Protein backbone atom coordinates (compact mmCIF):
# COMPACT_ATOMS: atom_id res chain seq x y z
CA UNK A 1 0.00 0.00 0.00
CA UNK A 2 1.46 3.36 -1.06
CA UNK A 3 0.97 6.46 1.04
CA UNK A 4 1.71 10.14 0.34
CA UNK A 5 4.65 10.06 2.73
CA UNK A 6 6.25 7.19 0.79
CA UNK A 7 6.33 8.88 -2.63
CA UNK A 8 6.76 12.59 -1.86
CA UNK A 9 10.06 14.14 -0.84
CA UNK A 10 8.33 17.26 0.45
CA UNK A 11 4.78 17.97 1.54
CA UNK A 12 4.09 21.46 2.87
CA UNK A 13 1.10 23.68 3.63
CA UNK A 14 0.64 27.40 4.16
CA UNK A 15 -1.97 30.10 4.01
CA UNK A 16 -2.37 31.70 0.61
CA UNK A 17 -3.72 34.93 2.04
CA UNK A 18 -6.00 34.92 5.09
CA UNK A 19 -8.80 33.01 3.37
CA UNK A 20 -7.11 30.10 1.59
CA UNK A 21 -4.93 27.11 2.46
CA UNK A 22 -2.56 25.73 -0.15
CA UNK A 23 -0.79 22.38 0.05
CA UNK A 24 2.19 21.43 -2.11
CA UNK A 25 3.00 17.76 -2.72
CA UNK A 26 6.42 17.47 -4.35
CA UNK A 27 6.60 13.90 -5.63
CA UNK A 28 9.85 11.98 -5.62
CA UNK A 29 10.51 12.38 -9.36
CA UNK A 30 8.42 12.39 -12.54
CA UNK A 31 7.63 8.67 -12.35
CA UNK A 32 6.03 8.84 -8.92
CA UNK A 33 4.20 11.98 -10.01
CA UNK A 34 2.77 10.28 -13.10
CA UNK A 35 1.67 7.23 -11.15
CA UNK A 36 0.15 8.79 -8.06
CA UNK A 37 -0.67 12.49 -8.44
CA UNK A 38 -4.11 11.72 -9.85
CA UNK A 39 -5.06 9.31 -7.05
CA UNK A 40 -8.65 9.22 -5.88
CA UNK A 41 -7.40 9.71 -2.32
CA UNK A 42 -6.37 13.24 -3.32
CA UNK A 43 -9.41 14.20 -5.38
CA UNK A 44 -11.75 17.03 -4.48
CA UNK A 45 -14.19 14.82 -2.61
CA UNK A 46 -11.46 13.20 -0.53
CA UNK A 47 -9.86 16.55 0.30
CA UNK A 48 -13.27 17.99 1.19
CA UNK A 49 -13.89 15.12 3.63
CA UNK A 50 -10.41 15.32 5.12
CA UNK A 51 -10.54 19.07 5.73
CA UNK A 52 -14.30 19.54 6.13
CA UNK A 53 -14.54 22.01 3.24
CA UNK A 54 -16.74 22.35 0.15
CA UNK A 55 -15.58 19.98 -2.62
CA UNK A 56 -16.68 22.44 -5.31
CA UNK A 57 -14.10 24.95 -4.05
CA UNK A 58 -11.13 22.56 -3.94
CA UNK A 59 -8.67 23.39 -6.72
CA UNK A 60 -5.95 21.12 -8.13
CA UNK A 61 -2.88 22.16 -10.13
CA UNK A 62 -0.40 19.79 -11.72
CA UNK A 63 3.04 21.31 -12.26
CA UNK A 64 4.79 18.59 -14.21
CA UNK A 65 8.18 20.26 -14.40
CA UNK A 66 8.37 20.20 -10.61
CA UNK A 67 6.53 16.89 -10.10
CA UNK A 68 4.26 19.05 -7.97
CA UNK A 69 0.61 18.59 -7.14
CA UNK A 70 -0.82 21.73 -5.56
CA UNK A 71 -4.15 21.59 -3.78
CA UNK A 72 -5.82 24.82 -2.64
CA UNK A 73 -9.10 25.38 -0.82
CA UNK A 74 -10.79 28.11 1.21
CA UNK A 75 -10.07 27.98 4.92
CA UNK A 76 -12.94 26.67 6.99
CA UNK A 77 -12.57 29.84 9.04
CA UNK A 78 -10.52 32.91 8.03
CA UNK A 79 -7.07 33.21 9.59
CA UNK A 80 -7.01 34.28 13.23
CA UNK A 81 -10.60 33.59 14.29
CA UNK A 82 -11.90 32.46 17.66
CA UNK A 83 -11.14 28.79 17.05
CA UNK A 84 -7.81 29.36 15.27
CA UNK A 85 -5.33 26.58 15.95
CA UNK A 86 -2.89 27.03 13.06
CA UNK A 87 -2.55 30.72 12.22
CA UNK A 88 -0.27 30.23 9.20
CA UNK A 89 -1.68 26.89 8.05
CA UNK A 90 1.79 25.40 8.32
CA UNK A 91 0.64 22.13 9.95
CA UNK A 92 -2.30 21.37 7.67
CA UNK A 93 -0.25 19.09 5.42
CA UNK A 94 0.21 16.52 8.18
CA UNK A 95 -3.10 14.75 7.74
CA UNK A 96 -2.23 14.12 4.07
CA UNK A 97 0.94 12.14 4.82
CA UNK A 98 -0.91 8.92 5.58
CA UNK A 99 -3.38 9.13 2.69
CA UNK A 100 -3.38 5.98 0.57
CA UNK A 101 -2.66 6.43 -3.12
CA UNK A 102 -3.56 4.44 -6.19
CA UNK A 103 -2.10 4.37 -9.67
CA UNK A 104 -5.17 5.21 -11.68
CA UNK A 105 -6.24 8.48 -13.17
CA UNK A 106 -9.38 8.61 -11.06
CA UNK A 107 -10.35 12.18 -10.37
CA UNK A 108 -12.46 14.16 -12.82
CA UNK A 109 -11.09 17.52 -13.91
Amino acid at each position, binding site marked *: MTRVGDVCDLVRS*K*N*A*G*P*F*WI*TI*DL*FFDGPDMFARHARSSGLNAGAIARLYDVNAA*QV*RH*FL*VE*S*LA*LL*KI*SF*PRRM*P*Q*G*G*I*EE*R*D*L*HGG*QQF*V*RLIGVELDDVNAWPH
Partner: protein
Amino acid sequence: MSNEDGGNVVTVLVPTGALGAGVIESEVAYGIGQGAEVIAADAGSSDSGAAYLALGVAKYNRGAVRRDLEILMRLAWPKRIPILIGTSGQAGADANLAWLRDIAIELAGELGIAPRIVCLRSEISGNQLKQFMREGRVTPLSPATQLNEAAVDACDRIVTVLGPEPYIAALRDGADIILGGRTSDPAVIAAFPIMKGAGVAASWHAGKIAECGGLSSDSHNPGSGVLVRIAADGFTIEPLALAAHCSVRSVSAHMAYENADPFRLTEPGGVLDVTDAHYEQRDGRTVSVRGATWMPRPYTLKLEGAGARQYQTVMLVGIQDPIVLRDLDAFHDRMQAALVRRVIDTIGADAGDFIISVRLYGWNAVSGERVPMGTPPPREVGVLFVATAQTQDLATQMAQACNPVFFHLAIPGHSEMPSYAFPFSPAYVPRGPVFEFLLNHVVAVDDPLEQVRPEWTEVAVKEMAQ
Protein backbone atom coordinates in the same frame (compact mmCIF):
# COMPACT_ATOMS: atom_id res chain seq x y z
CA MET B 1 24.51 40.84 -18.37
CA SER B 2 24.65 40.98 -22.12
CA ASN B 3 21.30 41.92 -23.44
CA GLU B 4 20.27 39.64 -26.25
CA ASP B 5 17.09 41.57 -26.96
CA GLY B 6 18.57 44.98 -27.58
CA GLY B 7 16.23 46.61 -25.04
CA ASN B 8 16.88 48.01 -21.62
CA VAL B 9 18.10 45.75 -18.89
CA VAL B 10 17.17 47.02 -15.45
CA THR B 11 18.98 45.75 -12.36
CA VAL B 12 16.98 45.60 -9.15
CA LEU B 13 18.46 44.83 -5.75
CA VAL B 14 16.04 43.08 -3.38
CA PRO B 15 17.93 43.18 -0.08
CA THR B 16 15.57 41.07 2.04
CA GLY B 17 12.20 39.37 2.06
CA ALA B 18 10.99 41.85 4.65
CA LEU B 19 12.56 45.03 5.99
CA GLY B 20 13.49 44.25 9.58
CA ALA B 21 14.19 40.57 8.93
CA GLY B 22 17.90 41.30 8.50
CA VAL B 23 19.66 43.15 5.68
CA ILE B 24 23.30 42.13 5.20
CA GLU B 25 25.61 45.05 4.39
CA SER B 26 28.09 43.04 2.31
CA GLU B 27 25.23 41.77 0.14
CA VAL B 28 23.93 45.26 -0.52
CA ALA B 29 27.45 46.45 -1.35
CA TYR B 30 27.84 43.53 -3.77
CA GLY B 31 24.53 44.32 -5.50
CA ILE B 32 25.39 47.98 -5.88
CA GLY B 33 28.80 46.97 -7.25
CA GLN B 34 26.97 44.85 -9.79
CA GLY B 35 25.14 47.91 -11.05
CA ALA B 36 21.87 47.90 -9.13
CA GLU B 37 19.78 50.88 -10.19
CA VAL B 38 17.12 50.58 -7.53
CA ILE B 39 16.59 48.90 -4.15
CA ALA B 40 13.14 47.44 -3.64
CA ALA B 41 11.67 45.43 -0.77
CA ASP B 42 8.50 45.05 1.15
CA ALA B 43 8.22 45.61 4.87
CA GLY B 44 5.14 43.62 5.63
CA SER B 45 2.40 41.26 4.60
CA SER B 46 -0.95 39.98 5.76
CA ASP B 47 0.69 36.62 6.56
CA SER B 48 1.23 37.29 10.23
CA GLY B 49 -2.38 37.99 10.99
CA ALA B 50 -4.85 40.85 11.26
CA ALA B 51 -3.58 42.43 14.49
CA TYR B 52 -0.94 44.60 12.79
CA LEU B 53 -3.48 46.21 10.50
CA ALA B 54 -6.20 46.53 13.13
CA LEU B 55 -3.79 48.17 15.58
CA GLY B 56 -1.62 49.98 13.03
CA VAL B 57 1.53 48.57 14.64
CA ALA B 58 4.68 46.93 13.30
CA LYS B 59 5.61 43.28 13.68
CA TYR B 60 9.37 43.72 13.80
CA ASN B 61 10.86 45.85 16.52
CA ARG B 62 12.00 49.39 15.79
CA GLY B 63 15.68 48.56 16.25
CA ALA B 64 15.61 45.79 13.65
CA VAL B 65 13.84 47.91 11.03
CA ARG B 66 16.03 50.90 11.76
CA ARG B 67 19.17 48.80 11.41
CA ASP B 68 18.08 47.45 8.01
CA LEU B 69 16.97 50.81 6.66
CA GLU B 70 20.18 52.48 7.84
CA ILE B 71 22.27 50.10 5.74
CA LEU B 72 20.11 50.73 2.67
CA MET B 73 20.08 54.52 3.04
CA ARG B 74 23.80 54.79 3.74
CA LEU B 75 24.86 52.62 0.81
CA ALA B 76 22.29 53.91 -1.68
CA TRP B 77 22.83 57.62 -1.14
CA PRO B 78 26.27 58.16 -2.79
CA LYS B 79 24.87 56.94 -6.12
CA ARG B 80 21.37 58.30 -5.44
CA ILE B 81 19.91 54.84 -5.91
CA PRO B 82 16.19 55.08 -5.14
CA ILE B 83 14.79 52.96 -2.32
CA LEU B 84 11.26 51.59 -2.65
CA ILE B 85 9.63 50.02 0.41
CA GLY B 86 6.19 48.42 0.17
CA THR B 87 3.68 47.72 2.94
CA SER B 88 5.47 49.91 5.45
CA GLY B 89 5.37 48.94 9.11
CA GLN B 90 3.89 45.47 8.42
CA ALA B 91 0.35 46.49 7.41
CA GLY B 92 0.76 49.70 5.38
CA ALA B 93 -1.96 51.67 7.15
CA ASP B 94 -1.32 55.37 7.83
CA ALA B 95 -0.10 54.69 11.38
CA ASN B 96 2.31 51.99 10.14
CA LEU B 97 3.59 54.39 7.48
CA ALA B 98 4.13 57.25 9.91
CA TRP B 99 6.16 54.93 12.13
CA LEU B 100 8.52 53.99 9.30
CA ARG B 101 8.69 57.58 8.00
CA ASP B 102 9.87 58.80 11.40
CA ILE B 103 12.62 56.17 11.37
CA ALA B 104 13.70 57.27 7.88
CA ILE B 105 13.77 60.95 8.89
CA GLU B 106 15.77 60.15 12.01
CA LEU B 107 18.28 58.15 9.95
CA ALA B 108 18.60 60.89 7.34
CA GLY B 109 19.50 63.30 10.11
CA GLU B 110 22.08 60.94 11.56
CA LEU B 111 23.60 60.24 8.16
CA GLY B 112 23.62 63.93 7.29
CA ILE B 113 21.74 63.38 4.05
CA ALA B 114 18.63 65.00 2.61
CA PRO B 115 16.68 62.46 0.58
CA ARG B 116 13.29 63.36 -0.80
CA ILE B 117 10.99 60.98 1.08
CA VAL B 118 7.44 60.32 0.00
CA CYS B 119 4.79 58.27 1.77
CA LEU B 120 2.15 56.68 -0.44
CA ARG B 121 -0.88 56.57 1.82
CA SER B 122 -3.51 54.05 0.82
CA GLU B 123 -5.71 53.79 3.90
CA ILE B 124 -9.38 54.61 3.37
CA SER B 125 -12.20 55.31 5.80
CA GLY B 126 -15.23 53.12 6.36
CA ASN B 127 -17.42 55.90 4.98
CA GLN B 128 -15.40 56.02 1.80
CA LEU B 129 -15.74 52.26 1.38
CA LYS B 130 -19.51 52.52 1.92
CA GLN B 131 -19.59 55.15 -0.81
CA PHE B 132 -17.81 52.71 -3.16
CA MET B 133 -20.40 50.08 -2.22
CA ARG B 134 -23.26 52.43 -3.11
CA GLU B 135 -21.56 53.12 -6.44
CA GLY B 136 -21.46 49.39 -7.15
CA ARG B 137 -17.67 49.33 -7.38
CA VAL B 138 -17.00 46.64 -4.74
CA THR B 139 -16.82 42.97 -5.76
CA PRO B 140 -16.18 39.92 -3.54
CA LEU B 141 -13.25 37.57 -4.13
CA SER B 142 -13.70 33.83 -3.60
CA PRO B 143 -14.82 32.62 -1.08
CA ALA B 144 -16.33 35.92 0.17
CA THR B 145 -19.88 37.12 -0.43
CA GLN B 146 -21.27 40.61 -1.05
CA LEU B 147 -19.89 43.12 1.39
CA ASN B 148 -22.29 44.52 3.97
CA GLU B 149 -21.99 47.69 6.01
CA ALA B 150 -21.77 45.81 9.32
CA ALA B 151 -18.50 44.23 8.19
CA VAL B 152 -17.16 47.66 7.23
CA ASP B 153 -18.19 49.07 10.61
CA ALA B 154 -16.34 46.24 12.36
CA CYS B 155 -13.04 47.22 10.69
CA ASP B 156 -10.65 49.30 12.76
CA ARG B 157 -8.55 50.05 9.68
CA ILE B 158 -9.03 49.56 5.93
CA VAL B 159 -6.32 49.77 3.27
CA THR B 160 -6.26 49.43 -0.48
CA VAL B 161 -3.48 47.29 -1.95
CA LEU B 162 -1.43 49.38 -4.37
CA GLY B 163 0.11 48.41 -7.69
CA PRO B 164 3.32 49.83 -9.21
CA GLU B 165 1.81 53.02 -10.68
CA PRO B 166 2.01 55.23 -7.56
CA TYR B 167 5.68 54.25 -7.16
CA ILE B 168 6.37 55.15 -10.79
CA ALA B 169 4.63 58.50 -10.34
CA ALA B 170 6.69 59.22 -7.22
CA LEU B 171 9.94 58.24 -8.97
CA ARG B 172 9.09 60.61 -11.83
CA ASP B 173 8.46 63.33 -9.26
CA GLY B 174 11.98 62.85 -7.97
CA ALA B 175 11.59 60.68 -4.89
CA ASP B 176 14.73 59.16 -3.36
CA ILE B 177 12.91 57.06 -0.78
CA ILE B 178 9.37 55.82 -1.34
CA LEU B 179 7.56 54.40 1.65
CA GLY B 180 4.45 52.64 0.44
CA GLY B 181 1.16 51.93 2.09
CA ARG B 182 -0.18 48.41 1.64
CA THR B 183 1.18 47.21 -1.70
CA SER B 184 1.21 44.01 -3.70
CA ASP B 185 4.64 42.54 -2.90
CA PRO B 186 5.75 41.99 -6.53
CA ALA B 187 4.59 45.50 -7.51
CA VAL B 188 7.29 47.17 -5.42
CA ILE B 189 9.96 45.27 -7.34
CA ALA B 190 8.22 45.60 -10.72
CA ALA B 191 7.68 49.38 -10.54
CA PHE B 192 11.13 50.68 -11.51
CA PRO B 193 11.76 48.22 -14.39
CA ILE B 194 8.29 48.88 -15.83
CA MET B 195 9.02 52.61 -15.69
CA LYS B 196 12.34 52.04 -17.48
CA GLY B 197 10.74 50.07 -20.28
CA ALA B 198 11.55 46.49 -19.30
CA GLY B 199 8.93 43.90 -20.17
CA VAL B 200 5.78 44.18 -18.10
CA ALA B 201 5.34 40.41 -17.73
CA ALA B 202 9.05 39.96 -17.02
CA SER B 203 8.94 42.71 -14.39
CA TRP B 204 5.96 41.19 -12.59
CA HIS B 205 7.39 37.68 -12.80
CA ALA B 206 10.72 38.88 -11.41
CA GLY B 207 8.81 40.69 -8.67
CA LYS B 208 6.96 37.55 -7.65
CA ILE B 209 10.08 35.37 -7.64
CA ALA B 210 12.20 37.94 -5.77
CA GLU B 211 9.63 39.13 -3.24
CA CYS B 212 10.86 36.83 -0.47
CA GLY B 213 14.50 37.69 -1.10
CA GLY B 214 16.87 34.77 -0.60
CA LEU B 215 14.01 32.30 -0.21
CA SER B 216 14.11 31.61 -3.96
CA SER B 217 17.64 30.22 -3.67
CA ASP B 218 18.16 26.62 -2.61
CA SER B 219 21.12 26.93 -0.30
CA HIS B 220 21.07 25.95 3.35
CA ASN B 221 22.44 29.38 4.04
CA PRO B 222 20.61 31.46 1.43
CA GLY B 223 21.67 34.87 2.68
CA SER B 224 19.12 37.62 2.70
CA GLY B 225 18.63 39.10 -0.74
CA VAL B 226 18.69 38.62 -4.50
CA LEU B 227 19.64 40.59 -7.58
CA VAL B 228 17.32 40.52 -10.58
CA ARG B 229 18.18 41.82 -14.06
CA ILE B 230 15.05 42.39 -16.06
CA ALA B 231 14.98 42.71 -19.87
CA ALA B 232 12.18 42.82 -22.46
CA ASP B 233 11.02 39.22 -22.29
CA GLY B 234 12.76 37.72 -19.30
CA PHE B 235 15.02 38.16 -16.32
CA THR B 236 17.88 36.58 -14.44
CA ILE B 237 18.07 36.07 -10.71
CA GLU B 238 21.07 35.46 -8.48
CA PRO B 239 21.45 35.48 -4.70
CA LEU B 240 23.33 38.42 -3.20
CA ALA B 241 25.25 36.05 -0.93
CA LEU B 242 28.21 34.78 -2.92
CA ALA B 243 28.10 31.34 -1.31
CA ALA B 244 24.42 30.87 -2.19
CA HIS B 245 22.95 29.70 -5.48
CA CYS B 246 19.67 29.74 -7.33
CA SER B 247 18.58 26.61 -9.17
CA VAL B 248 15.86 26.04 -11.74
CA ARG B 249 13.96 24.12 -9.10
CA SER B 250 14.32 26.70 -6.33
CA VAL B 251 13.27 29.55 -8.60
CA SER B 252 10.38 27.87 -10.39
CA ALA B 253 9.08 26.32 -7.16
CA HIS B 254 8.79 29.78 -5.66
CA MET B 255 5.72 30.48 -7.86
CA ALA B 256 3.93 27.90 -5.72
CA TYR B 257 4.93 29.39 -2.37
CA GLU B 258 2.02 30.84 -0.38
CA ASN B 259 0.14 31.09 -3.65
CA ALA B 260 -3.17 29.32 -4.29
CA ASP B 261 -2.53 29.09 -8.05
CA PRO B 262 1.03 28.34 -9.25
CA PHE B 263 0.34 29.50 -12.83
CA ARG B 264 -1.72 32.65 -12.60
CA LEU B 265 -1.29 35.58 -10.26
CA THR B 266 -3.96 38.28 -10.15
CA GLU B 267 -2.44 41.71 -9.61
CA PRO B 268 -3.77 45.27 -9.77
CA GLY B 269 -4.48 45.89 -13.45
CA GLY B 270 -3.84 42.42 -14.82
CA VAL B 271 -3.02 38.76 -14.49
CA LEU B 272 0.48 37.31 -14.67
CA ASP B 273 0.49 33.91 -16.38
CA VAL B 274 3.62 31.78 -16.06
CA THR B 275 2.19 28.58 -17.58
CA ASP B 276 4.67 28.74 -20.46
CA ALA B 277 7.59 30.16 -18.50
CA HIS B 278 10.95 28.54 -19.13
CA TYR B 279 13.69 28.36 -16.50
CA GLU B 280 17.33 27.77 -17.38
CA GLN B 281 20.48 27.47 -15.29
CA ARG B 282 22.77 30.29 -16.45
CA ASP B 283 25.76 29.60 -14.22
CA GLY B 284 26.27 27.97 -10.83
CA ARG B 285 24.40 30.77 -9.05
CA THR B 286 22.11 32.31 -11.62
CA VAL B 287 18.87 31.24 -13.28
CA SER B 288 17.36 32.92 -16.32
CA VAL B 289 13.61 33.00 -16.81
CA ARG B 290 11.46 33.91 -19.76
CA GLY B 291 8.07 33.20 -21.26
CA ALA B 292 5.59 34.70 -18.78
CA THR B 293 2.68 36.70 -20.17
CA TRP B 294 0.70 39.63 -18.78
CA MET B 295 -2.98 40.02 -19.52
CA PRO B 296 -4.28 43.50 -18.70
CA ARG B 297 -7.58 43.57 -16.80
CA PRO B 298 -9.81 46.42 -15.64
CA TYR B 299 -7.96 48.07 -12.77
CA THR B 300 -9.02 46.96 -9.28
CA LEU B 301 -7.55 47.56 -5.85
CA LYS B 302 -7.79 44.76 -3.34
CA LEU B 303 -9.13 45.79 0.04
CA GLU B 304 -7.87 44.66 3.41
CA GLY B 305 -9.74 45.47 6.58
CA ALA B 306 -9.18 44.25 10.10
CA GLY B 307 -10.96 44.58 13.39
CA ALA B 308 -11.95 42.80 16.55
CA ARG B 309 -15.39 41.72 17.64
CA GLN B 310 -14.49 39.50 20.60
CA TYR B 311 -11.91 39.12 23.34
CA GLN B 312 -10.05 36.19 24.85
CA THR B 313 -8.49 35.26 28.17
CA VAL B 314 -6.32 32.14 28.39
CA MET B 315 -4.95 29.79 31.05
CA LEU B 316 -2.48 26.93 30.75
CA VAL B 317 -1.82 23.84 32.86
CA GLY B 318 0.56 20.94 32.33
CA ILE B 319 -0.48 17.39 33.23
CA GLN B 320 1.78 14.37 33.72
CA ASP B 321 -0.58 12.23 35.85
CA PRO B 322 -0.72 8.90 33.99
CA ILE B 323 -4.31 8.31 35.10
CA VAL B 324 -5.43 11.43 33.22
CA LEU B 325 -3.21 10.65 30.23
CA ARG B 326 -4.73 7.17 29.92
CA ASP B 327 -7.99 8.56 28.52
CA LEU B 328 -7.43 12.10 27.32
CA ASP B 329 -10.48 12.33 25.11
CA ALA B 330 -12.77 11.57 28.05
CA PHE B 331 -10.81 14.04 30.18
CA HIS B 332 -11.21 16.73 27.52
CA ASP B 333 -14.96 16.22 27.32
CA ARG B 334 -15.45 16.22 31.10
CA MET B 335 -13.29 19.34 31.44
CA GLN B 336 -15.11 21.16 28.67
CA ALA B 337 -18.56 20.38 30.11
CA ALA B 338 -17.52 21.29 33.67
CA LEU B 339 -16.08 24.65 32.58
CA VAL B 340 -19.16 25.65 30.61
CA ARG B 341 -21.37 24.70 33.56
CA ARG B 342 -19.16 26.75 35.87
CA VAL B 343 -19.55 29.87 33.68
CA ILE B 344 -23.32 29.43 33.58
CA ASP B 345 -23.51 28.82 37.35
CA THR B 346 -21.38 31.81 38.33
CA ILE B 347 -21.96 34.45 35.65
CA GLY B 348 -25.30 33.36 34.24
CA ALA B 349 -27.04 35.37 31.55
CA ASP B 350 -24.52 38.21 31.93
CA ALA B 351 -21.98 35.98 30.15
CA GLY B 352 -23.74 36.67 26.84
CA ASP B 353 -22.41 34.72 23.85
CA PHE B 354 -19.28 32.96 24.99
CA ILE B 355 -17.09 30.04 23.96
CA ILE B 356 -14.91 27.94 26.23
CA SER B 357 -12.33 26.01 24.25
CA VAL B 358 -10.04 23.36 25.79
CA ARG B 359 -7.06 22.33 23.68
CA LEU B 360 -4.76 19.44 24.59
CA TYR B 361 -1.26 20.26 23.36
CA GLY B 362 0.69 17.03 23.03
CA TRP B 363 -2.46 15.15 22.02
CA ASN B 364 -4.69 16.79 19.40
CA ALA B 365 -4.69 20.57 19.91
CA VAL B 366 -3.60 21.54 16.40
CA SER B 367 -6.36 19.67 14.60
CA GLY B 368 -8.90 19.47 17.43
CA GLU B 369 -9.94 16.10 16.03
CA ARG B 370 -10.05 12.68 17.68
CA VAL B 371 -6.77 10.78 17.42
CA PRO B 372 -6.79 7.27 15.88
CA MET B 373 -7.88 4.40 18.17
CA GLY B 374 -4.95 2.79 19.93
CA THR B 375 -2.74 5.89 19.96
CA PRO B 376 -0.43 5.50 22.99
CA PRO B 377 -0.72 8.15 25.72
CA PRO B 378 1.84 10.98 25.62
CA ARG B 379 4.27 11.62 28.49
CA GLU B 380 2.50 14.86 29.33
CA VAL B 381 0.04 17.33 27.85
CA GLY B 382 -0.37 21.07 28.01
CA VAL B 383 -4.00 22.06 28.41
CA LEU B 384 -4.86 25.47 27.02
CA PHE B 385 -8.05 27.13 28.20
CA VAL B 386 -9.44 29.82 25.91
CA ALA B 387 -12.47 31.88 26.96
CA THR B 388 -13.94 34.05 24.21
CA ALA B 389 -16.44 36.74 25.21
CA GLN B 390 -17.86 40.07 24.10
CA THR B 391 -15.53 42.08 26.35
CA GLN B 392 -12.11 41.51 27.84
CA ASP B 393 -13.52 41.88 31.33
CA LEU B 394 -16.09 39.15 30.73
CA ALA B 395 -13.48 36.79 29.26
CA THR B 396 -11.28 37.32 32.32
CA GLN B 397 -14.22 36.85 34.69
CA MET B 398 -14.85 33.51 32.99
CA ALA B 399 -11.26 32.43 33.44
CA GLN B 400 -11.38 33.44 37.10
CA ALA B 401 -14.64 31.57 37.60
CA CYS B 402 -13.22 28.49 35.89
CA ASN B 403 -9.91 28.52 37.75
CA PRO B 404 -10.78 25.95 40.48
CA VAL B 405 -12.33 23.57 37.94
CA PHE B 406 -9.42 23.89 35.53
CA PHE B 407 -6.95 23.42 38.39
CA HIS B 408 -8.57 20.49 40.16
CA LEU B 409 -10.94 18.64 37.80
CA ALA B 410 -11.68 15.37 39.61
CA ILE B 411 -10.65 12.02 38.23
CA PRO B 412 -13.59 9.55 38.34
CA GLY B 413 -13.00 6.70 40.80
CA HIS B 414 -10.23 8.56 42.63
CA SER B 415 -10.96 10.37 45.85
CA GLU B 416 -7.76 12.43 46.00
CA MET B 417 -8.29 15.90 44.51
CA PRO B 418 -5.71 16.40 41.76
CA SER B 419 -3.86 19.69 41.22
CA TYR B 420 -2.60 20.29 37.73
CA ALA B 421 0.56 22.29 37.03
CA PHE B 422 0.02 25.99 36.44
CA PRO B 423 3.14 27.73 35.06
CA PHE B 424 2.06 31.29 35.98
CA SER B 425 0.51 33.39 38.71
CA PRO B 426 -1.96 34.91 38.20
CA ALA B 427 -3.08 31.88 36.27
CA TYR B 428 -5.06 33.81 33.66
CA VAL B 429 -3.66 35.95 30.85
CA PRO B 430 -5.99 38.51 29.25
CA ARG B 431 -4.89 37.87 25.68
CA GLY B 432 -6.65 40.83 24.09
CA PRO B 433 -8.95 41.19 21.11
CA VAL B 434 -9.48 38.49 18.49
CA PHE B 435 -8.36 40.33 15.37
CA GLU B 436 -9.75 39.14 12.07
CA PHE B 437 -9.50 40.10 8.43
CA LEU B 438 -13.01 41.18 7.58
CA LEU B 439 -12.73 42.09 3.89
CA ASN B 440 -11.92 39.91 0.91
CA HIS B 441 -13.06 42.25 -1.84
CA VAL B 442 -11.79 44.54 -4.59
CA VAL B 443 -12.82 48.05 -5.57
CA ALA B 444 -12.81 49.08 -9.24
CA VAL B 445 -10.95 52.31 -10.07
CA ASP B 446 -10.58 54.24 -13.31
CA ASP B 447 -7.16 55.54 -12.40
CA PRO B 448 -4.50 53.54 -10.48
CA LEU B 449 -3.56 56.74 -8.65
CA GLU B 450 -7.12 57.52 -7.58
CA GLN B 451 -6.90 56.24 -4.00
CA VAL B 452 -3.28 57.17 -3.29
CA ARG B 453 -2.34 60.19 -1.24
CA PRO B 454 1.37 60.94 -1.68
CA GLU B 455 2.80 62.89 1.23
CA TRP B 456 6.24 64.41 0.75
CA THR B 457 8.65 65.00 3.58
CA GLU B 458 11.40 67.56 3.38
CA VAL B 459 14.48 66.59 5.32
CA ALA B 460 16.66 69.53 6.22
CA VAL B 461 20.38 68.82 5.97
CA LYS B 462 22.07 69.39 9.27
CA GLU B 463 25.70 70.20 9.63
CA MET B 464 27.66 66.98 9.51
CA ALA B 465 29.14 66.14 12.90
CA GLN B 466 32.70 65.97 11.61
